[in-house]
């Protein structure tokens, strides 16, 4: 056994000893209690995932696969019971015994036959499972892509393009009833200048030289500052997740946070 293995065995031994002391002194819930079992499983799965930070290992792989499997099953079950069943089956076949049992208030409604269209399209999607008639699924996919593209095109054009351009068309000098707001003016100048220089950077039909090149350089700086802010926010988000997990381990599991 090499030195590294001995070090790890010592660390594991100390951890188990620590857990035993806390368990025997009643400072944390045992895994044999109903509430405790869930917390212990969640704690060990968290540790399995965090173990990847040291190096890839079978514990991490196990937790990862478990997460993927459980998530997929959860999505499927939720999709069936919250969307497929009330929005399609109950509307098409209200007299169906399962509908009467689960959604009794919808059982008295007359069948809405127009929902046969989404049913057929849904079934066509499933033909992908049969290689000989798999091409039929393209019809349903064409419908999905067509409607989504049409819907997104209008909304993105209006809200993400026109409205954003309108938001940039602001006065250079910010003035109100109390006079000129220097802070607001500075902010407006940064906003307009930043957009202008950023656009120049992405204008490739003219060589970036002279005043044009200078504006382009300012554009790069604006972009770099944006990426920096984005990175800072990303760090904040990741640390927040770590804080959440540590709070669970040291609070809910080990009960070391009062």
């Amino acid at each position, binding site marked *: 056994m090499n030195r590294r293995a001995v070090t790890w065995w010592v660390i594991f031994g100390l951890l188990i000893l620590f857990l035993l002391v806390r368990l025997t002194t009643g400072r944390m819930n045992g895994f044999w209690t109903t509430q405790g079992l869930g917390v212990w499983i969640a704690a060990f799965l968290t540790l399995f995932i965090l173990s990847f930070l040291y190096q890839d290992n079978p514990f991490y792989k196990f937790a990862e696969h478990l997460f993927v499997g459980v998530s997929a099953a959860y999505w499927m079950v939720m999709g069936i019971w919250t969307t497929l069943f009330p929005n399609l089956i109950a509307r098409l076949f209200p007299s169906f015994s399962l509908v009467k049992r689960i959604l009794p208030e919808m059982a008295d409604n007359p069948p809405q036959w127009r929902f046969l269209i989404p049913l057929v399209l849904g079934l066509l999607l499933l033909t992908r499972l049969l290689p000989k008639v798999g091409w039929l699924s393209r019809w349903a996919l064409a419908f999905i892509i067509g409607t989504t593209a049409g819907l997104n095109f209008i909304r993105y054009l209006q809200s993400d393009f026109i409205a954003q351009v309108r938001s940039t068309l602001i006065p250079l000098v910010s003035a109100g009833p109390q006079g000129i707001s220097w802070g607001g003016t500075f902010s407006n100048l940064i906003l307009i200048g930043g957009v202008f220089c950023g656009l120049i950077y992405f204008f490739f039909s003219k060589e970036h030289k002279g005043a044009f090149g200078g504006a382009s350089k300012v554009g790069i700086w604006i972009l770099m500052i944006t990426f920096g802010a984005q990175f800072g926010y990303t760090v904040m988000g990741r640390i927040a997740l770590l804080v959440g997990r540590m709070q669970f381990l*040291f609070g809910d599991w080990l009960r070391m946070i009062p």
Partner: protein
Amino acid sequence: MRLYQQIRDIDRRVIFLFIALSVIFPLLFQISFHEYASPIVQRIFDKVESLPAGAKVLLSFDYDPPSAPELHPMATAYVRHCCERNLKLYIIALWPMGQTMANQIIEEVIEEEFPQKVYGIDYVNLGFKSGGQGVINLILSDFEQAYPVDINGTSIDQIEMMKGVKNIQNMNLILNVSAGFPGLKEWILFGGDPGQIPVAGGVTAVSAPLLYPYYPRQLLGLMGGMKGAAEYEAALIKRYPQYAEKEHFGIFRMGPQAVAHVVIMFFIIVGNITFFIGRRREKKEAAGEGVAK
């Protein structure tokens, strides 16, 4: 090996260890800092404050447990504030796990802190629907098409507070807590803008910079990450001091967050110093070799 080389070649796991310690110690010693609401967060708070009792608020839970540490405190603060103001809450989810998150908030906040609130009169949980922006587009014109029943299978025609609610244009405010797609951006594009309904929301820190351009014309206010949650909690405590006794995970978690940020900044500075020292020495060595030749 020189010191700067040792620092330059430091094992990444040592940095992980420092980050872990910078989070664990402030948690154990409960280090926290004073928080105050910035204008972008205060605007959401003021909007909720300005709504009259009985005003309709659509609250969409579009997140799942992986992003709960950031977003759950926001949702808790929102719901607490809306209940305090006696607003009617219409709860939905565009993420499958959002329904579970909503149930948890209902249990922890509405049922525990506001037991006088009646389901179907003060709040309703319509549950999850798949379809993302398609669902928003549908409820923009007709609620019942997307939500024929609530989470318990009760027809929405039978629910008291659904009477007179034809679509989301009947709402006074759309509040959203989201961790990605579909989320706040979709609510602005497909709900707020076409319906002329004020939209505000809380998002993960990662997605916050992408939503700032919509503020203030298309987006009423924005809470970005844990900091946003802490700021909303601070505004709530300032206005309603009775909530100071409650758990505020946003404010509590900002302590470890701040310490971890200091440690990261330290490593960035040290990393840059070693980089520049290394580059200068390499240049000197290259110049020395040139002279020797």
